[in-house]
């Protein structure tokens, strides 16, 4: 058997092209793009209708067509927001969250058409446009999410290489323990260098630091450079110790890099939700304001 985890040479099996219960089929391709077609058809119909129906004096949210679009949009938004409840309420029954996600994605995208046509392209500095802007932010963050969900899982899996997050952290702790033991014979100055390497963990730095893929220079890298220099000088009675420290430090370096990559990919898979979800709530609030004020005008 070939080396595990390695990317296969030649054409990779695209399991998602298959239908039926025994094959993997992702949420984007669910039921041969059923919801994509549905959303596409809805959007196309609405665009054609918008162009054909001549609303006087001009297309407006307050016309009969505008109200129809608005009502449909609001119902859709509320239903889309219910995905959060559906996901967490593990009730019995013949439902599948994959189907919900698929519908959520494509119908959510069709909101771009529904919502924008509803505005009649009358945008301005008011609460109504605020609702439209918030909606667009939610949809764009969702698009980011779809991109992340399509591109990142494979990388997460490859980086993990069968180890769990807990095991990765355990490995780090274990190397730290060995570094600590190995550094005992060192004098205070060198011991402090090792200590700085031990103190470096995968969680340091803020959110941007975590999500960026830039290599970080920390205590471990510095200590590694230091002891690598010393062991290649090769004139100290402590040379074997330096070799061992060098080996341990480079192991720590590699382990740290893997945990950081893991946390970064996990972070990217989640970070958009911190926009998507709160802005959805803001959108619901703005929508309420929009609807109430519209009825006030009426």
């Amino acid at each position, binding site marked *: *058997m*070939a080396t*595990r*985890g390695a990317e*296969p*040479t*030649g*054409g*990779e*099996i*695209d*399991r*998602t*092209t*298959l239908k039926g*219960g*025994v*094959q*993997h*089929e*992702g*949420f984007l391709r*669910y039921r041969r793009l059923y919801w994509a077609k549905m959303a596409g058809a809805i959007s196309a119909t609405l665009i054609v209708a918008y162009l054909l129906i001549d609303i006087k004096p001009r297309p407006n949210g307050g016309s009969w067509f505008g109200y129809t679009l608005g009502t449909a949009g609001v119902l859709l938004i509320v239903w889309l927001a219910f995905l959060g*409840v559906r*996901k*967490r*309420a*593990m009730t*019995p*029954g*013949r*439902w*599948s*969250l*994959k189907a*919900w*996600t698929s519908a959520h994605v494509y119908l959510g995208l069709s909101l771009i058409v529904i919502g924008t046509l509803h505005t009649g392209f009358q945008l301005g500095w008011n609460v109504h446009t605020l609702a439209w802007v918030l909606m667009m932010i939610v949809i764009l963050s969702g698009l980011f999410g779809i991109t*992340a*969900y399509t591109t*990142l*899982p*494979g990388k*997460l*899996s*490859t980086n*993990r*290489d*069968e180890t*769990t*997050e807990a095991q990765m952290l355990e490995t780090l702790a*274990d190397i730290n*323990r*060995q570094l600590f*033991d190995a550094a005992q014979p060192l004098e205070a100055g060198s011991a402090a260098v090792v200590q700085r390497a031990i103190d470096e963990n995968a969680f340091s730095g803020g959110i941007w630091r975590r999500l960026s893929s830039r290599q970080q220079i920390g205590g471990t890298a510095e200590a590694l450079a230091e002891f690598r220099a010393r062991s290649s000088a090769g004139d100290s009675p402590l040379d074997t110790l330096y070799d061992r420290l060098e080996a341990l430090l480079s192991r720590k370096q590699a382990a740290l890099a893997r945990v950081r990559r893991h946390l970064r990919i*996990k972070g990217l*898979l989640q970070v958009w939700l911190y926009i998507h979800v709160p802005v959805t709530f803001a959108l619901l609030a703005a929508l309420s304001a929009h609807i109430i004020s519209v009825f006030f005008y009426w």
Partner: protein
Amino acid sequence: MADAYRIAIIGSGPAGLSAAGRAAELGLSHVLLEKTDHLSDTIYKYQKGKHVMATPNQLILRSDMDFDAGKREVVLGTWDEQAASLGVNVKLNADVTEITGDAGNFQIKLAGGETIQAENVILAIGTQGNPNTMRVPGGDKPHIQYQLDDPTEYVDEHIIVIGSGDAGIENALGLAADAEQGNVVTILNRSAEFARAKDANVKLLQQAGEQGRINIMTETTPSEVLDKQIMLDTRDGQTKIRCDRIIARMGSAPPRKFVEACGVEFASEEREAFPKLSPAFESTKKGIFVIGALAGYPLIKHCMNQGYDVVEFINGNTDLKPADEPLLEEKFRGLPGGRSVADWLEFLRARVTILNELSPLQMREFMLDSEVQFFRRGATIFEKNEPGSSLFGIAEGKVSVQLSEADPSLTAPIDQGSIFGEVGLVSGRRRGSTITAAEDTIVVEIPRMAALKLMATVPAAKRAITNISTERQLLQMFGSGLTSEDLVEVMKTAEIVNVKAGEAIINEGEEGTDIFVIRSGSMVVEKMVGRKPVFLSYLPAGSYVGEMSLLDGGRRTATVRAAIKSEVIKVDGAAFGTLLERKPQLLDRARRDMSAREDVNNFVEAKKDSFSGVVDMYSSVASFLVENGIGEATDVLLIDEHLCVGCDNCEKACADSHDGLSRLNREAGRTYAHLHVPTSCRHCEHPHCMADCPPNAIHRGDDGEVFIDETCIGCGNCQRNCPYGVIRMEKTPPKKPSLLSWLFFGIGPGPGEPDHDWIDANVADDTPKKAIKCDMCAGIEGGPACVRACPTGAAIRVAPEEFLSVSRLETEQL
């Protein structure tokens, strides 16, 4: 030396203690011999505060000792107190080495040299056995111990641990865990590898070795124990090292040898066999009685009842009805015939052939596990494709087997005295045909565990079941109006062959015409293309292979090897060929089966030149899955890591569907080419977890799922036996506040499994831990929660033969 005792009881566990209590109460002269310095060592060795269960609930306790479910300390305390107040004559530290003499005059030799005389002996020594001891000069020195209770009590000592099993490694790690204790720990291993221990333990040990916390000496045996030193034979010669204490963990010898040396016969050579016993628990050696786990009853209540009963029997009370009488009465209630319990037992024993050789006592125990059912003429007993692994014996009446799904009138009869359902028993697969009652029928339904026990205890029953099942499997597989008469010649050549995992039964390019029928386990078919084996198909139990070279002549076109340990029926090709000539229908059918296989062969041949990455990939993915136990799975959770975003909603959904505890670990487990097999139950054909469950709480359910019922006593055997690590021992947390109150007010831990602190804070300290595992969401509408709750479609549950089919490969080619 004192006069002979009327009864000597060996072993002070629940059975022995209860027997001694009864003897004391009746005023019989008795002695209770216990090899350790405390009563009931097995329960004494439970961890502190462990909750001891009292199953089966419906069984009434009949003993002078009290027993109820509760903490280890309470149970032991009650017994100590009652043993004293009843005036039980206990002799502690009395290790019996030999029993000689005959009924009325037994000599019981103790390790110290003392001999005790008794008229009757009750063996209640359980099945744990004695630890193997050191047999080198100085092997009896006082600083050698065979157990380690608390590794923290030793400081600044040079300690040698002997033994390469888990016990030895765990002890060594425990002693070296805290550097502050200042122990110098050395572990000795006779061989170069630690092959008998769990991987995790070996890894920890090697790590400790690298760090210098433990000295590991492989290929080393002790040759002499001195005071303060030990002489060792190493690969490089003898050496002497300092040694203050020796902890020898070299396994234990099962007690069978000792019991046989006493003159007691066992029912068979099988490892699972129990001693042959009369209804009064008397063994083949007159005057020696066997009760408790050694007699095949591992549960405390059974043991205690037997202790009471056996003393009553010895005391001449032959009319005593066993305590399980009401249970049996309940079983036989409502059946036509209105017989007494004893009559029913005799009726079934005499009528069902495979039960003929059971003793009345075995029959009684056997019926406690089994059920008797009455079916009116025409009623369905089970349907084709129903899951089920129990065996049926016909006590009265007749049943008919439906041979064809299309035409239900096509049937074959099975007569009174015979058995059916054996295919499910052997292969663990679904039922092969529908069986209905041909007339009013009484059947005994024997659960798989009881049937296996029966086969181990009664060799004749084993032979009968094997023969019938072989013949039926052939009949069922080739169908087409074949009768058992047609098979006579073929059956003569049929031979059951055990195949180890990975071993080939057919090699590509070889001559040979034998046909193989897979009885249990599964096989994979491979073909060499270039230098690489290409996975062609997966054959579950119940299929046959090898017909191609018989029909077409020529050499074998592919290699067939066992995916897991399997059993096949080997049928001589010539004999089968003759049968084919006589039965054109059968020949047609074989040709049809073969053409499907040829298609696959041709497909691979055609692709050979443009041998694509796809075929290669499919082949290696299939091999990976088989390596990971998919070969013995009936249903397995697979995650496509191209789709898995790591949200763990599968785990959360699992927890929320099952008392707040998740039965799967998404992240753990093996991965190949982004196909991940998470740590979750595979619902094996022959579940390893079922092998040793004292209350028999693990079953296969209606949808093929393997589940643990509420009679679980929390012993942890199943967890240890599962090779895939999918069983957890946990306390059941209380119900969580509702989802909405969490969503809006932040009350409770939210969806998914609560963290340990929350569970600890919300359950009582003495809540017993129970074994939990995936039950495939049986009884939950919509099916497995993990799959339903996956937002991206990464999780699916599949049967291996569907996932590993070549049709898949062809679709993927398109």
